[in-house]
């Protein structure tokens, strides 16, 4: 059977599975298994099904997922976030847009200490979403904004995605990190502006009677200052620890969780229920993300085995006279791949094939790496495999469709605006590293 036909069959199956409402992990697993069986033979799936579930989970870099979620649990359950948002709410006189912007910029800050978007999205979801909803955000906007804010972790250094790209293509990682700073800030601005537009449009549908008038919410001064001090303390200890070389960004998850736990202890919030609930939420989310990743791994094996991405990209070299066209098509291919397959797998799968093409076109690998990093980040927000969305949905209980409703526009806006800007003005990426 020709590979193209197999892809058509598997593609149609996936769409029907999605429409039927099958679980995402099972859609990936089943499509992957069917694809591999069609390409090879039933016996051929054995190796993958035996070892991939364990190998996928046994990963040091993924330890950030449970640890950052645990940290967020400890912080949320100690009640300081609630106080912090109330303070901002009071200061901003109820203009709720400011809270959303605060969420986006907190996501950026978290991004500077976390290299993994899933972990950050989950943390942002737990911390910010309930507060945003309480202040009048719809579930969809609140969830999508938190997910988008968390996704910044893959763009703002340190970033696991950029490290992978750097090693797979021998691009200096330090330069990639510096180069992604300006795009990271642009994305933060783009998310904030889009959020304000979404808010405005959502409010149009609400009759003015339903809009709650601003009422200053009271927080005792002592508690408010304590909240600010404690959050500051947690942030400073994690930031300082990373930038002073006391621990690595991966270890930061553990240290952050420990500091938050000690904070909760000092606030006398810790009891059996505090611990059991924190555990329960943390393991639920970790298990959910990893089970989807296992499915995505098997599906990724099918895509690898088919050699189709290689063939498509090889076809592209026929368009070598139109470099901008190739770049736009490459962006589209990456957008689609990141929609369905987990980020790291996509990078490892495509780097060997894309790199020669990029080199022939004399495109800067730092610049292209940053573009790939951004598209990878976006992939976490798009259905059907939008791990950041599922993370937020998992911790908040908001249905993932509601979040996708806003996350998809976010991702398209980021893709078009940010990637467009970077293609038109490559200096946005290359300017900083050249000066270092």
């Amino acid at each position, binding site marked *: 059977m*020709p590979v193209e036909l197999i892809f058509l069959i598997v593609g149609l199956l996936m769409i029907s599975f999605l429409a039927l409402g099958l679980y995402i992990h099972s859609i990936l697993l089943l499509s992957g298994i069917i694809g591999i069986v069609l390409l090879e033979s039933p016996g051929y799936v054995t190796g993958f099904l035996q070892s991939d579930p364990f190998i996928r989970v046994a990963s*040091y870099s993924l330890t950030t997922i449970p640890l950052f979620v645990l940290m967020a649990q400890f912080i949320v359950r100690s009640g300081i976030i609630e106080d912090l948002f109330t303070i901002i709410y009071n200061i901003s006189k109820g203009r709720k847009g400011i809270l959303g912007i605060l969420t986006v910029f907190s996501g950026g800050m978290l991004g500077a200490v976390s290299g993994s978007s899933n972990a950050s999205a989950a943390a942002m979801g737990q911390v910010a979403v309930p507060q945003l909803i309480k202040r009048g955000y719809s579930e969809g906007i609140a969830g999508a904004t938190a997910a988008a804010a968390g996704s910044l972790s893959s763009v703002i250094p340190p970033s696991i995605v950029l490290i992978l790209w750097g090693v797979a293509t021998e691009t200096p990682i330090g330069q990639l990190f510096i180069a992604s700073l300006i795009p990271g800030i642009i994305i933060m601005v783009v998310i904030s502006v889009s959020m304000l537009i979404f808010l405005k449009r959502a409010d149009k549908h609400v009759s003015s009677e339903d809009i709650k008038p601003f009422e200053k919410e009271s927080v005792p001064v002592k508690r408010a200052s304590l909240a600010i001090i404690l959050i500051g303390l947690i942030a400073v200890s994690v930031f300082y620890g990373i930038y002073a070389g006391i621990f690595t*960004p991966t270890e930061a998850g553990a240290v952050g969780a420990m500091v938050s736990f000690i904070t909760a202890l000092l606030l006398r919030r810790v009891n059996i229920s505090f611990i059991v609930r924190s555990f329960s939420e943390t393991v639920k989310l970790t298990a959910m993300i990893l089970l989807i990743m296992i499915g995505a791994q098997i599906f990724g094996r099918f895509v*690898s085995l088919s050699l189709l991405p290689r063939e498509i990209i090889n076809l592209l070299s026929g368009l070598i006279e139109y470099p901008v066209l190739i770049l736009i098509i490459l962006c589209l291919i990456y957008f689609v791949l990141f929609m369905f397959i987990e980020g790291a797998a996509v990078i490892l799968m495509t780097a060997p094939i894309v790199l020669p093409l990029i080199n022939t076109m004399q495109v800067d690998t730092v610049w292209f790496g940053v573009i790939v990093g951004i598209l990878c980040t976006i992939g976490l927000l798009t259905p059907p495999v939008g791990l950041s969305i599922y993370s937020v949905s998992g911790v908040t209980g908001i249905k993932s469709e509601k979040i996708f409703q806003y996350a998809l526009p976010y991702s398209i806006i980021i893709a078009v605006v940010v990637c467009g800007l970077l293609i038109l003005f490559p200096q946005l990426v290359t300017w900083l590293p050249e000066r270092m």
Partner: protein
Amino acid sequence: GNNNNDEEASGAQTNNNEANNSEASAEGTNNGEEINLRLTTGLSPSDANTAAFTHPWMEMVEERTDGQVTFDAFFSQELVPMGEEIPALNDGTVDVAAPILPTYEPARYPLSDVVLLPLESSDAQISAMAFAELIKSEEELQDGQTFTEMEYGTHGMKALPVQPVPEYTIGVIDHEFSDVESLQNLQLRTSGRAHEILVDQLGSSSVSMPFSEEFEAMSRGAIEGTVRAISDYEPYGFDEMITNALEGVSLGHFPFVWLMSEERWNELPADVQEVMEDAAYELAESTTKLEAMEAAYENAEEQGIEFTDVADMEPEAQEHIEQAVLNTWEIWIEAKEEEGLPGKEAAILWRDLIIEQGGTVHESIMELE
């Protein structure tokens, strides 16, 4: 797809061969059928070792068989995770693993890290030739088994040599090597047991972490340096951070090995087998890595990395290094012997092969009997 047919075809061919030559040798005549092989490696396609071995080896085999043999290569663990190569070769997920990193799996390949043992002097070429000799060595280490039989044959694997990584050294950030103390109390990243012992014997501490962590850890000072080959610096971005490195000592080589299941290997026509073996042994003589190392030294100098020759260090420091090297060999041997492995035999065999190829070891190592 095509691959499927090829596999069935070669499978059928084997059965014929087995029927025809009932003798142990399944090597058959070449009936000219196309052979498409899946090749896996955990290394990236732009890795120095891929450039020095995997790419040229595949090209040589494809050319010399006039395109009868073709490869679909999967890099960076795209199809098979590192450490899963043997099961993948056995169940036919892939046909060739080229190369694997045996020192990452000491439980499976307990003696392969003999290549990591520290030497006085050696280079990419010396270690490559010595390793090729080690792989084809007939010397029986234990129970009538050679090194290759013990390490790879017991897993049902056919092994061919791949050039090891050029000589390792210690590279550090903002730190100068001069006296004994300058070798102590450092946090260094290591990637194998022999180096853990060495760093420990020097009086420093070894830290293990994946490469993706190494860059961040080094750039923030969570570790002070790394035990690696200079040629690793640029690809991993360390050349921009490391300021000082040792020379005049060779802290061993990181070995790689080519594997195929004996079953699958025996299905290949004899002339194809010969082409594959010859290509691998010829590549042991390749100067690609030597040249890469020269380029790496040039780049390191451009980046302002300062090299301290061990001979220019204080005499006590030189003795300290030699003592640490000797202790490393002894501790390594003892640990292997405790596991019931021929540690001493393997170490002496490796030492002699290194010397045969023009490398040197410290005097005290020569006295090992």
